[in-house]
Every structure is written in C-alpha cells, then in structure tokens.
C-alpha cells in the first residue's frame, strides 16, 4: 500500500516568550502540543477549532515556515521537518498555501503575470519563454480570470478576484497538497460561494489534497472528506464528515456544532452554551484541556489526560467518557 501523501506524527510547536531583564526564556506558548494525522492523495482534511487552538500553527509547520519543536512531518514517505535546504526546495513545490487575506499576501508592486511566473521560474517548470507564457495564461483560465488582467496589479482587483490570483499562484507550482488557511473566511457570502466551488472543481481536476483550515463549520461540512477538531493545541476528535456532523462524540465537538446559528428562523435547536473562555495556551489546564468548560467533567478529567482512541468507523475521540473505566 502506498504511504499517505502527508503524515504528521506527534507534532509539537512551543513558542518561547521572552521574559525578565535579559530576555530569559522562561515560559512557552504551547500552540501545538502533540498532534498526529494523515492526509491521503486527493483528500480534503479540515482542521477546525476556535482562535488560538493551534490550527494555523499546524498549517505553518507543514509548510515549514518555522522549525518545529518536536515530532515529524512526512511528505510522500520522506521527512521534511528536518530536510536539508536542497531537498526541501523540491518538497516545497509539492506543498503550497493560500492565505486568508488576499490583500496582504500578494505583493502590491508586482503585476499578476510576475506573481504567477515567479513560482514557475523558481522551480524550473517552464522549458522556454513561450512555455512560461502558455502556463501563465492557462492558470488565468483555470481560476476563471480574464487573460487581459495579467498586466494589472493586485490593488486593481476585488477581494474575490485577488483570492483567485492567490489560488493561481499556488497552482503554478503544480502542488499535490494545498494548505488553505482560512482561505474563504474574509470573503463576502456570494464571493465565498464562488471560491468554494472553484476549490472543489480544482481538487477534482488536479487530484489535489487540501488541508482546509477554517472556523466556519458549515463551509467545512460542504467541502470536506474528514474533519479534525482542535482545542488548545490538541486534536480532540477526528472522523469522516458524516460521523462528525451526524454523531459527534467529543463534548467540545458537540458544543461547537450546536453553537452555530442556523439560517432557518424558528429552527428548533438547543445550543450547548459553554461557560467561560478558552484557557491560555501558556498555562493549559492539567488533565483534559477541555475540563474547565466541559459540562460532563468528572474527577478523572482533572488529573489524567485522555488519549485519542478509535470509537467507530475511522472515528477517533480523546475523552474519558469514551473509555472503559
């Protein structure tokens, strides 16, 4: 059996906080604290959770935008978390990213043509000048932007069009995996639908795998194959779409889903209203990290940390309620 496209094993990223007179590093933000998952070729895995849960940090660790604290990131059977810069270069081509804010992630001084040509040149994908031109115009067709727009600069486009340029830039490198970090969150409803549809078409057309990082659960349900729910640097539940949305097992997943207001006036719903706020990732609670807000908390949760266990068809949950005592 071929290995999964991406494998993440016990990933940790602790950011030091400088404290004290001489910048002694005495405390850490435990942004990601032991996360493991896999993504198959052509699959969409969504990472969901609230601000500060570490979902974006996981995305950035996979892109190797910083060095990780410990763990492994394996792309197609090869470790990339400690790969040498020369091998890393080829690996970078295979994993691309689309960021949330299309206003700050495109260079305002570059023309669209140059934005798209840069990755093609960098990775030596074009055989000739003509080939480069062919590729750049083809990318515009792929993301459904007019070819005349190649000579314009990012400020001349609307938010949705800029996001199309960002997607075209990611596709330029011919990647196998695209990390979409809140890629549709900043867009207006009608434009969001356009971009979601585009991403789904591209996935089918190019067999792309997507790591879809989002806090919008309705969009996630619409897009995804599998979902991993994060809370304070840990995955609390991971399962195929059907299981997550029809039969969530972790109390946090249940609360998260029940909190989403439905666009149906008078809909019968009983939201589980969690008390308080998410604790600080600098000093996460002992035991289960969710125990301070969990409606079903009992003694064991305060002292012992639950591990992910399989509870059903590819459904994994980290909760003591799911374990034999």
């Amino acid at each position, binding site marked *: 059996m071929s290995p999964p496209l991406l494998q993440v094993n016990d990933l940790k990223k602790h950011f030091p906080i400088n404290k004290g007179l001489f910048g002694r590093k005495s405390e850490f933000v435990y942004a990601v604290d032991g996360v493991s998952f896999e993504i198959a070729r052509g699959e969409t895995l969504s990472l969901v959770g609230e601000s500060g849960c570490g979902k974006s940090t996981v995305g950035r660790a996979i892109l190797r935008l910083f060095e990780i604290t410990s763990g492994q990131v394996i792309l197609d059977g090869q470790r990339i978390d400690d790969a040498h810069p020369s091998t890393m270069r080829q690996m970078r081509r295979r994993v691309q990213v689309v960021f949330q804010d299309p206003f700050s992630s495109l260079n305002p001084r570059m023309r669209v043509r140059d934005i798209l040509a840069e990755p093609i040149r960098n990775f030596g994908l074009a055989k000739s000048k003509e080939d480069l031109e062919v590729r750049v115009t083809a990318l515009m067709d792929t993301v459904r932007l007019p070819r005349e727009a190649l000579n314009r600069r990012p400020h001349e486009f609307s938010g949705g069009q800029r996001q199309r340029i960002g997607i075209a830039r990611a596709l330029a490198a011919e990647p196998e995996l695209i990390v979409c970090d809140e890629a549709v969150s900043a867009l207006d409803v009608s434009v969001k639908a356009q971009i*979601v549809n585009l991403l*789904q078409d591209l996935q089918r057309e190019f067999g792309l795998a997507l790591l879809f990082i989002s806090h919008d659960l*309705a969009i996630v*349900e619409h897009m995804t194959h599998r979902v991993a729910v994060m809370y304070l640097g840990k995955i609390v539940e991971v399962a195929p779409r059907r299981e997550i949305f029809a039969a969530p097992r972790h109390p946090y997943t249940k609360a998260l889903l029940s909190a989403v*207001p*439905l*666009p149906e006036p008078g809909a019968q719903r009983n939201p589980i209203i969690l008390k308080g*706020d998410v604790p600080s990732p600098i000093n996460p609670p002992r035991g289960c990290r969710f125990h301070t807000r969990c409606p079903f908390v009992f003694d064991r949760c305060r002292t012992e940390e639950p591990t992910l266990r399989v509870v059903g068809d590819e459904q994994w949950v980290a909760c003591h309620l799911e374990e034999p005592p």
Partner: protein
Amino acid sequence: MALLEVENLQTHFRTPGGINRAVDGVSFHVNEGETLAIVGESGCGKSVTSMSLMRLIPEPPGRIAGSIRFAGKDLLKLSDREMRAIRGNDISMIFQEPMTSLNPVLTVGRQIRETLMIHQGLDKQAAEAHAIGMLTLVGIPEPKRRVGEYPHQLSGGMRQRVMIAVALACNPKLLIADEPTTALDVTIQAQILKLMLDLKRRVGAAIILITHDLGVVAEIAERVMVMYAGRKVEEAPVAELFRSPRHPYTQGLLGAVPKLGSSLAGTATRLAEIPGQVPDLRKPIIGCVFAGRCALATDLCRQYAPGLEEKGPRHIAACHYAAKGAIAA
C-alpha cells in the same frame, strides 16, 4: 407607533473619484421593542446607514440628507449638543471590534460610569454601584474586581459584554448593534447572542442588528431589510423572508450559504453563485442596482430602477420580476 422613522436617507461622500452614493434613498422604520436586521455584503451601505442614524458621519466629506425621526424629533435637525444628549442615552451602539471601541487607558468601570454621570446625573458612588450592577447583568464573573480592570485584561467575549454594559447603562430605547458577534468565536458568539436575547426581554429596547451572517439574523431578528449597493432591495418578517425571498439578490444570498447538516440531509449540492461583483458606487447607476449580476435582468431593468412594491403580507421588494423570481426559486 414607530420609534424610528427613516425617510429617503441619502449619505454621500465626496471622493477624488467622484461622489460615492454609499446610501442612496433608503426608508425604513423600527417599532418600539422590535428587532430589525439590516443584511447585506461589504459596501452595501448597512454600516453607513447605522452611522448616519447616530450622526457619526464626518461632514465633509460626508453629507446626510433625508429625515431620521426618532421619538418625534428629526435627528438631522438637532444641534450637536442636542444630539450628544441622545447618543449613548436614548440610542446607543455596539461595534464589531470591542478592542478598538473601548478606551484602553480607562478602567471598564470608569467607561460605564461616564455615561451614567453625564446622562443620568448620578454621583460617583451611585454610578459605581450601577456599573457593578451592569457588569453582573451582562454575566461578567467577579464584577467587583473587573470594574477596576482595563480592557486589555479581558478576553474578546468579556470585552463585548462590557461594550453591551456601556451601551445599556442608560436604558436606551434603541440599540444599534453593528456586527456584534462577527469578531467572536462561535461558542462565545452563542453566549453573546443568548445575552442579547435575554437583555432584550428584560430591558425592552428596540434593536437594529447589522450583520452579514444569515444564521444570526434567523436567530434574533423579527424583521429583515436587505440592502444592496446603497439601496433597500427587500424587506419582510424574518420567517417570510427565508421562506419566500422575492428579490433575486436575496435568493442568491440564501442559496450561497451552506447549511449545517446538509451532508446528512443529502442536500449538499453545489453552492449557488452570484456572478460578478458589486457595482462602483461612484458612478451613477441607471436602472436596477442588481441588473449587472441578475439572471432575470432585461432591458427594462437596465433602464428603469424598480420601486419597492408589495409582494406579500408586510413583504416588499424592488424588482420588476419579483413575482416571477419567486416561482423560479
């Protein structure tokens, strides 16, 4: 009787590229104790409408015309001094970003006290006691300690609770909430929405809720007004609007939002797209504002702007073909 009646509101801004007609002839009313939602996408004029009601538009470059009658008075005819007596007292406002709308160098207690001392003439002790009472009302734990803290010491959800406490301190008749939960996480959003519903029941203020989130609208609004490109295109009671939207834009908006549970119901289909983009408001728009993106548009739409017409009980829409559109949907 209507608490607020807005007639032909026009808020225009002078810009280097021409006059921007951010709000272009919008009329609506809000009854006492009622919740009206104003829905639309960025640039549709919903926030400018709310800022105009509070007369918070800098003039120039802005210019507000029309009339805004609140409890019998035309707010646009009041002096600055008279307007100040209304802001924060009879009409108050909650903004999207609590970090930028609270003063970072004053304690939260002082910020609540300030409105009470200015508008209600309370002395410091009475205002302090009332401030603690307000913090308790909005569900802030340990209000006696929190009253002496600064905004940066509170989480996002707590700051929004403080904003609500400041806004409600003087028992306003009208509360304008501009994207009150957009910056918050969903579990915190659920807390704040529940709080707003509870407080509304207890305090009885009318609310104008400005949002782009149709889920939030369905949750707390009674009536909805849909705006597009500075104009009102549809208005109806909330259940009626979601059940039978008449304007093609409203239909598009509702179709573009995936619903939670769609994968289970087997209704997960391709999202409806509204092609194209919002028109440039600096150029005069002839005909219907939505014509450029509408599947039903004809030459009639491109030449004559449709007026708001009755399409059902308390249901109005501005579309030449609205009846047809309802059948097509």
